[in-house]
């Protein structure tokens, strides 16, 4: 087991650096540079000022030198400073945005799980029933509806017309923390719509996944055996079938680890949530290379770890894999 783990970890290293290398060169291939926002089409900027700015960000050096400088810093766990005018530490910019993104993603993943699993199981056990057909249509509508449009409709209904929920932001404006309860209530109100909507889009995939796994499992011989033993349908479905049907879910959960830090630009923009999606989007738009690389590195790292964890827990959960 430890040999396996060590081997996996060692193999991850070249993969990780490969990812950083490719990302670094690819983002530099895109036209435009971090200084453009300040200098382009600006009558007050001389060619010399452009050179000055480029030198300040180290953009005047050859690309491979820039990469090596960046890499050297990374090894010391230093992500460098942002190329945007604020010149702040990349890690600081990420740290200030990551909690809200993780919070929303965890909540919506949780919501997806507790809704999608029962939907999937029930549609499988009642295949082709009205419930099955209804949920199929429902989740696909959820999948197909442009969420920004739905978000706006819900904002108009709950925010503008009924006035029950705030329209945007993550806390109220003139909000002075009076009591813990009020703080929690205020935060909860702000999170309801974003969490609900981001879960809505994810329902379809997950519930269909559970449904098809479940359908496959209940046709297996061991389910017949269980039924033949005279176990109640309930025990058969929820004890024997479900456990096996949910095994692949581990893989999905493992793969969604990097997704937890990647916010959705669309939700964050619509709900004015200062999360990772916006940060990444704007850093791409302004060619803020250190921030882009910082987020990509963290993403790559989490993807690799997520895969490893999925594999490990799979072998823990499924004896058939453990032995091979």
């Amino acid at each position, binding site marked *: 087991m430890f040999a396996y783990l060590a081997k996996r970890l060692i193999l991850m290293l070249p993969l990780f650096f490969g990812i950083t290398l490719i990302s670094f060169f690819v983002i530099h291939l*895109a*036209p*435009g540079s971090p200084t*453009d*926002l*300040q*200098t*382009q*089409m*600006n*009558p*007050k*900027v*001389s*060619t010399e*000022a*452009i050179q*000055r*700015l480029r030198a*300040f*960000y180290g953009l005047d050096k050859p690309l491979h030198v820039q990469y090596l400088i960046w890499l050297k810093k990374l090894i010391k766990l230093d992500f460098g400073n942002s190329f*945007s*005018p*604020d*010149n*702040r530490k990349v890690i600081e*910019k990420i740290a*200030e*945005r990551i909690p809200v993104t993780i919070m929303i993603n965890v909540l919506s993943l949780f919501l997806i799980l507790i809704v999608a699993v029962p939907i999937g199981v029930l549609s499988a056990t009642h295949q082709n029933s009205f419930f099955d057909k209804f949920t199929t249509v429902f989740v696909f509508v959820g999948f197909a509806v442009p969420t*920004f449009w739905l978000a*706006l409709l819900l*904002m*108009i209904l709950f*925010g*503008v017309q009924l*006035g029950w929920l705030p*329209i*945007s*932001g*993550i*806390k109220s*404006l*003139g909000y*002075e923390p009076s009591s813990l309860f009020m703080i929690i209530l205020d935060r909860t109100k702000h999170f309801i719509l974003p969490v609900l909507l981001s879960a809505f889009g994810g329902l379809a995939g997950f519930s269909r996944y559970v449904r098809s796994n479940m359908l496959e499992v209940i046709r297996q011989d061991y389910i017949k055996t269980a039924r033949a033993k005279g176990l109640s349908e309930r025990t058969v479905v929820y004890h024997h079938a479900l456990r096996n049907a949910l095994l692949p879910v581990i893989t999905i959960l493992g793969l969604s680890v990097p997704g937890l830090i990647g916010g959705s*630009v*669309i939700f*964050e*923009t*619509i*709900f*004015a*949530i*200062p*999360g990772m999606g*916006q940060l990444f*989007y*704007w850093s791409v*738009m*302004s*060619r803020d290379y250190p921030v882009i690389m910082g987020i990509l590195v963290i993403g790559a790292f989490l993807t690799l770890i997520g895969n490893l964890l999925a594999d490990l827990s799979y072998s823990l959960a499924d004896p058939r894999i453990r032995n091979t």
Partner: protein
Amino acid sequence: MFDCGLANPEMRHARYQMNFRSAFRLSFSLSLLILTLMIFSGCSKKKGEEAKPVSYDSKPPAYGDTFVDSSIGDASNLIPILSSDSASHDIASLLYNGLVKYDKDLTISGDLAESWQISPDGLVITFKLRKGVAWHDGKPFTANDCLFTYQVIVDPRTPTAYAEDFKQIKKIKVVDDYTLEVCYGKPFAPALASWGMAMLPRHLLEGKDITKSPLSRNPVGTGPYRFKEWVTGQKIVLEANPSYFEGCPYIGRYIYRIIPDSATLFLELKSANIDRMGLTPIQFMRQTGSREIQSTFRKYRYLSFSYTYLGFNLKSPLFMDKRIRQAISCAIDRQEIIDGVLLGLGRIATGPYKPGTWQYNPNVRKYPYDPAKARELLAEAGWRDSNGDGILEKDGKIFQFTILTNQGNDVRSKSAEIIQRRLKEAGVDVKIRIVEWATFIKEFINNRKFEAVILGWTIPQDPDLYDIWHSSKTKPDELNFISYKNIEVDALLEKGRGTFNQDERKRCYDRIQEILAEEQPYAFLFVPEALPIIHARFRGIEPAPAGINYNFIKWYVPTDEQKYRDR
């Protein structure tokens, strides 16, 4: 909806030096996005009606309440010389002062400088500074702060985009604490306005690396508001400065909310959670008419400081002949573009200046929609439709060209479509190509690989247009990318920036406008209107040529209408 913020970034460079305290909100931040449309914001019902001061009641001014402003983008750095986005400069304009500012009529008046003198040869400006001005931390403001601001801007280690004007300075001397003497190598008219740049506190910045200064996120200035709090991506909070030298502002608190989506912004406005936003023409004309909005908000409209144009690549053989450019100008129905794209909320542009300013020359050649004249001019230049297919030919070549514009700017792409249709009627086959901004600049503008472009310029308060029209400014990164060259214009541009005498300058710029109108290197299209909407409880808003922001510290909410009391 999520077009990149880079949509027409040139707007961002709204020559901030002077805009700080003056009126308009050319909302451009990197942020910027949909801003494109926000710019076209404004105020009243009938077209052409200039916004008038609203004096609907006479409740006395009162201190207190909060103004909740809104922006699509967050600020980046609150040391103004280090940032160029409009969000940062919006905030900075309330936190800092320059030595001079543009007043409501766009004439230069004193800000931190009480008065100034320009030597008869135009080489030396002597500023007399206000006494008794204090930084927000209580330290006195003196001429040494001005000297320091100059030094840090021209310091090659400072990554600033604003050094150019200050590099013209040959010598700068602090005569005493309240007198500053600035010597220039040659008379340079934009110099005076360049001192509208925010002055920085020497005692907090000297000897430190300005790029790492905590003042970036915790600024200290001399302005009417003091910095309180900045929650990244959410809001920036300022508080009235009770010891401001022009008196404490009435509105006690200023909150700048960051809401990146314009649809959300509009919903927040409808629920009165924000007190101001810039409307799009559609929102202005069609979506803010309900009784509820009419009674809670007031809309304003005034010409913005920008214009949109169709620029011709004068290196292309197609456009070398001035008659062709004039013909295209005749074939375009500008009013139709304004009505169709801006819903009437704009004015026809005749040159590079804003109508109503001193430098604007109304008596230039105009190009009303005249398809017959267009045909005539094209025929004169040798273009005829010999095979009857509706497209003109000359020497076996058909008259065809491509209009390029950048992605993410609806107004421009729609204008291109309208122009395309009108030119087709005139026998010219136009293709439209819309390109992402960075590619647009790098592959097409800088390499001069375009035939015609639709773009916009911010109109600076100072009329100096050397960088855009002078024939020396045609190198790859420079802004005379259409390669315009006219010896008389060159000479006038040099003369115009070399004198402080406004009458003499006006003569230069009047003539330049005549030449540009005659030669049509750009087909000037329109000046859009700014369309802000502001909560009706705010009084004292008086639209002027400078817009509305110039007297923000005099805005107030009568006591009985104050909304945010718990300060």
